[in-house]
């Protein structure tokens, strides 16, 4: 049971380049999330999705786009990478939260450096 899988695990980009981070979950979860974590800080929500075909902005959405074409996948795109986007990116998933104790399940992160 893989849980939440993120690819790639590491990446170095030059300023202005674009890339897509892939998140895949095999738990049939409805909800998926993208976070970034800067050194010594907690997670900040970038975008999230409550179901296939739907996405919404989180706390820090600028400079990122997302897509949820399939229930099991949630893609995070950087159209024009900037040094300020150097961070560790975490994807998470959870069952629908209404009406139950639904913890988030996290991947192991993608370490992204923008030069």
């Amino acid at each position, binding site marked *: 049971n893989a849980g*939440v899988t993120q690819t790639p695990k590491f990446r170095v980009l030059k300023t202005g380049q674009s890339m897509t981070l892939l998140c895949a979950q095999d738990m049939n979860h409805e*909800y998926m*999330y993208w*976070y970034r974590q800067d050194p*010594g*800080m*907690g*997670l*900040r*929500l970038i975008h*999230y999705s409550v179901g296939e075909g739907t996405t*919404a902005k*989180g*706390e820090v959405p600028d400079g990122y786009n997302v897509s949820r074409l399939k229930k099991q996948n949630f893609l995070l795109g950087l159209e024009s990478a900037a040094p300020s986007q150097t961070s560790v990116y*975490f994807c*998470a998933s*959870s069952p629908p*939260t*209404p*009406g*139950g*104790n*639904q*913890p*988030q*399940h*996290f*991947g*192991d*992160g993608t370490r992204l450096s923008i030069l």
Partner: protein
Amino acid sequence: LAKTTQPISMDSYEGQEVNITCSHNNIATNDYITWYQQFPSQGPRFIIQGYKTKVTNEVASLFIPADRKSSTLSLPRVSLSDTAVYYCLVGERDSNYQLIWGAGTKLIIKP
């Protein structure tokens, strides 16, 4: 949205009970309290969640006083493998996307 305050770091020894307290003065009626654990180079892992009084599972207990303005995560008989960062989050149970993650408490367990 309720914000939380936790100690930046704590030290303890193997076999001891560790209590990490989190302050959340502006917690709302519908807010739940959730704790996660994070090891280096890994994503956070859910530990426990509660609304009031006491909750216990196989790894921890969560104590919440009547006014709910604070909560305490209790780890019984810690081992070296409990060295990690622990996050306290407050938010509506039906709304994971409104959770605010603080810097957490770095717990170091010594032999």
